[in-house]
């Protein structure tokens, strides 16, 4: 092997290793439909929807579209995407949803006034996946529902039009509106307080869907912009950049080895 060959080889190895290290940062490292969940021992700095600490939490931006429910003007929705960040402690889950809404509609005090709102939908039974449109009678959903007129409800639903409020809500929410964006933070204990409520596991992923209403567009009920099922990455499962980095490195080394073997093989064949 000549010096020139060695130089070429060195360049090749450098490029491959660099690609292996940097590629995950360029590509979307996260599996589709995943909402990362960050573990924190103490979530006090995240209790307010506008708290600075939320900016350090990895977030997923989720596209929303009209839910297509059987109500007038169901397709006339305006919220196109929302960003969801999740944190869990040893005993609570925190979710922060933010979305753009140019008008703040917080009143339901007039006949034509509807409030901005957002909802988080979880399977009542964390290990099943209910129908996306509010679940079904035998596969129900929990809904955490916040409206800008100051209400937070914890609801049970088994199909469209069946939402029923739990009498002792365990969900708390607070919100801020700034620069044309709502920020709403929900929190609930991981353990289900009573029957028919989602027990949020710490060892498996949980499906989650969200919906948003623009009160200024008289959106309410099924006239809403909703997501598909996503999942909160609560499980230990294969996910996240470290795992991908290992894969990329192995793949890179494999390529280098194959290239080396090939070059050496070619040289030896020629040398004969």
């Amino acid at each position, binding site marked *: 092997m000549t010096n020139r060959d060695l130089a070429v080889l060195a360049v090749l190895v450098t490029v491959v290793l660099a690609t292996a290290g940097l590629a995950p940062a360029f590509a979307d490292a996260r599996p589709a439909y995943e909402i990362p969940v960050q573990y924190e021992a103490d979530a006090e700095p995240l209790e307010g929807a506008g708290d600075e600490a939320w900016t350090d939490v990895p977030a997923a931006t989720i596209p929303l579209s009209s839910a297509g429910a059987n109500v007038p003007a169901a397709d006339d929705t305006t919220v196109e995407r929302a960003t969801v960040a999740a944190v869990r402690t040893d005993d609570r889950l925190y979710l922060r949803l933010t979305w753009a809404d140019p008008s703040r509609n917080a009143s339901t005090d007039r006949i034509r006034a509807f409030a901005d709102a957002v909802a988080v939908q979880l399977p009542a039974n964390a290990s099943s996946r209910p129908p996306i449109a509010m679940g079904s009678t035998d596969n129900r959903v929990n809904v955490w529902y916040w409206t800008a007129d100051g209400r937070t409800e914890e609801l049970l639903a088994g199909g469209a039009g069946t939402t029923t409020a739990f009498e002792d809500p365990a969900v708390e929410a607070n919100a801020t509106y700034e620069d044309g964006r709502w920020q709403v933070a929900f929190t609930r204990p991981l353990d289900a307080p009573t029957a028919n409520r989602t027990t949020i596991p710490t060892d498996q992923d949980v499906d989650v869907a969200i919906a948003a209403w623009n009160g200024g567009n008289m959106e309410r009920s*099924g006239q809403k912009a909703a997501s598909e099922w996503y999942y909160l990455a609560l499980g230990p499962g294969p996910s996240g950049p470290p795992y991908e980095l290992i894969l990329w490195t192995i793949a890179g080394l494999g390529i280098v080895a194959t290239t080396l073997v090939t070059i050496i093989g070619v040289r030896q064949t020629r040398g004969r």
Partner: protein
Amino acid sequence: MSQTDDGDAVDLAEGIDHQVAMVMDLNKCIGCQTCTIACKTNWTDGGGREYMYWNNVETKPGSGYPRDWEEMGGGWDDDGEQRTPGDLPDDEAYGAPWDFNHEQIMYEGSDEPLRPMSDAASWGPNWDEDEGAGEYPNSYYFYLPRICNHCTHPSCVEACPRSALYKRSEDGIVLVDQDRCRGYRYCVEGCPYKKVYYNAMKKTSEKCIFCYPRIEGEGPDGEVRPPSCAADCPPQLRLVGYLDDEDGPIHKLVNEYEVAVRLHPEYRTEPNVYYIPPFAPPQHSESGESLNADRIPRTYLEELFGPKVNEALNTIERERDRVRQGEDSEVMDLLTTKDTAEQYRLEVFDD
């Protein structure tokens, strides 16, 4: 569903045992609003219901309550199959409270009389009362008392995505289940008569309940009583009973003689409040002679009550002539009865 004498079925909504109904004789209404106040003091005197008139009396022709309700859509299409979405009235259409110059008088030392702010007093319930239409000497108007029609084919019930509105199986009264209602207001916009109201304090919608505690005898004296609007009416213009009570005056006036007609039948909700259409003196010439021409144009009455109003008016005219000639007329007997047992037949189906 029950059978009439000639075998025609009385149309009741599916799953309904009986159907409450009311006939209002518009020729007797003096526009005194006693019915309005009777209702209000019973049901809507506070708690976010201040602006509501479950019973109102409006002048026709006129914009009504809420203003221009007849132009807000709702109800069903021509086949009665598809709902036609309606509009949600704004607060002003119902007559929002006016702003007065309290601030100036109380705190700024103004000597002005207490009065509404300059542009505040521009609309209110019965703002156009007694205006009517037509030119002197042939101007005309009449009063139209309105409650929820407790329709056989109610579009408010269909409009609710949560089935919070329902027809009671025992008597067809349309009610809003306050526990199920989440204040979406699809019923408010879906009712073409605009007889469901949003309570902004309770965040639910509410409506006329046909005074069901009264007709159930749940009052303090335990007696069955007609709805307050009917009981308190000074000229006693309302008959209350069941559409399928074939011996009662309502069935006779509606189905047998067909002199009581529905308001805006083209909305296809099949109201169970029926009206005896109004007569007015004939038109007068400039010199004051009576002319052979209707004062209230038939075309206008057709707009309100549909084409059946013509035959209804013709029948009443014929029956009046019979009475004038000394003959018997069951129609006129029914319309002029002073026997409250006949006027309010609410216990015929009691077990």
